[in-house]
């Protein structure tokens, strides 16, 4: 019976104990949660409240003059910077162009990495020969921070878009390919055997059992990959670019335009957050069974 959540007590009525006691035992469950499920519960309202409090403290500390505007400008100053940049642009180019260039670079590289990385990863999962060939190079370059080989990319492909897109491609490629590779292992042997016992061919098992089983892990890898790609892009634009959000933020910092720096960081964060949300939504839509069977 104890594997049935309903059988476990649902929520102990408020317990008062010392800090150490609370550290030593699992936290008591709040109403509406299932006992023993970590991190359950609705947090949206609290999240909004936390952020509101933080912005208030920010506003307060700048208005009261606790910090110099050069270090942390007031929130309203940043909104103003945002409006100005939106209207007049930065270094002669409008904000939407910087945003557009950055997202286009990441998105192009990401699509390319998925198109090549997922089939290759699946092939590596299925075939020992493919694994033998592609494992060493991928495992070798994966731990090296992509920025380290950015200079090589520039020497080989020039300072244009190719080198940046290729750099991001490489940074996304490894996690996506390795995710697809290990996703192949997700299919339970029972599922595979069941298909064979209904007369399936090898190809059918591959397409209709192994591939769908690998989907959750592939999507997770894609989510990690796009985050990684975005990080790499911002850094690459700081080092070697004349447009894009990373470039904008770094050059603003050189002119001590802190407002634009913070605004840029917020835009970078917002886009990263959007990518994450889109990938999560895709996960919910495409693999609703993830973690449930």
């Amino acid at each position: 019976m104890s594997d049935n959540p309903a059988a476990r007590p649902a929520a102990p009525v408020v317990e008062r104990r010392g800090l150490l006691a609370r550290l030593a035992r699992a936290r008591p469950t709040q109403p509406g949660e299932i006992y023993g499920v970590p991190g359950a519960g609705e947090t949206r309202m609290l999240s909004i409240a936390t952020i509101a409090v933080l912005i208030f403290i920010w506003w307060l500390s700048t208005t009261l003059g606790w910090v110099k505007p050069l270090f942390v400008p007031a929130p309203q100053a940043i909104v103003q910077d945002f409006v100005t940049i939106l209207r007049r642009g930065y270094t002669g180019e409008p904000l939407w162009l910087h945003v557009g260039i950055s997202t286009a670079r990441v998105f192009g590289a990401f699509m390319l990495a998925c198109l090549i990385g997922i089939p290759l990863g699946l092939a590596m999962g299925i075939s020992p020969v493919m694994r033998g060939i592609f494992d060493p190079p991928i495992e070798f370059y994966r731990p090296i921070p992509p920025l380290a080989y950015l200079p090589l990319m520039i020497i080989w492909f020039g300072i244009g878009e190719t080198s940046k897109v290729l750099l991001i491609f490489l940074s996304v490629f490894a996690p996506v390919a390795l995710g697809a590779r290990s996703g192949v292992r997700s299919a339970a042997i029972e599922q595979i055997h069941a298909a064979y016992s209904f007369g399936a061919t090898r190809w059918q098992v591959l397409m209709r059992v192994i591939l769908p089983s690998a989907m959750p892990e592939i999507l997770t890898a894609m989510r990690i990959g796009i985050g990684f790609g975005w990080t790499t892009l911002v850094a690459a634009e700081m080092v070697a670019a004349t447009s894009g959000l990373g470039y904008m933020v770094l050059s603003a910092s050189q002119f001590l335009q802190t407002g634009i720096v913070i605004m840029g960081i917020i835009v970078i964060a917002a886009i990263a957050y959007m990518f994450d949300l889109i990938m999560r939504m895709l996960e919910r839509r495409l693999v609703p069974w993830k973690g449930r069977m």
Partner: protein
Amino acid sequence: MSLQVIDASVVYPGQRGRSSTEALHAVNLTVEAGEFVVVLGASGCGKSTLLNLIAGFVAPTAGRIVLDGQNIQGPGADRSVVFQKHALLPWLNVRDNVAFGLSLQGRGKAERYKISEHFIEILGLRGFEDAPVYTLSGGMQQRVGIARALTCDPKLLLLDEPLGALDALTRERAQELILRVWDGSGKSVLLITHSVEEALFMGTKLIVMSPRPGRITHTFELSFSRRFLAGQTARSVKASADFIALREQVLQIIFADEEAA
């Protein structure tokens, strides 16, 4: 339908310097049409290997398996397997899971849904056709697994501890359901189980296996399931004196094996 396992042995080669293990040693077994054969034994007695052998997932090192005069070469739709768990496809709903075998055979949508309909009905899944399988309880999932195996119209149904993961009460209900479905279907069934009570209650023939190496040591003819199908309640069948006596006898055999090990 007639299945014969003739002098079948399976030796798993040793890996990394470990010695090889003989999972099955010279096993002989016959399953006739309409029979319900139950294989019972402790862990490691090779009963799962035996099932895998008949299903075609494992090839015999020696001997052969003959189905209706033909040697078994690999898995096929004439022998459908129901597993203990993890065998349903979570991205399909109940109806498509039940029809999965048919769709592998390339049958059209209308046709496979029509066939599935019948099995959804008899396994009590009506009303859940569109539910994703991962929302079902363990007992319901197992019924989907059985329905799926039946839609392929196999000659032989292989049940690999299908009720092992269910709680005691659901398990008893499922035993009764399987017997009712089997009754009158004319199908042959091979059931692997750990539970002596389940084995005695369900089978028409009981095979007891012993480990190291796995081999068949005893065979019993049974008729308890007939009593149940004739209208007696399951509980009264299981409480009858001859049932209890035979259960003790079988338990003794198995414990003796374990002590010898």
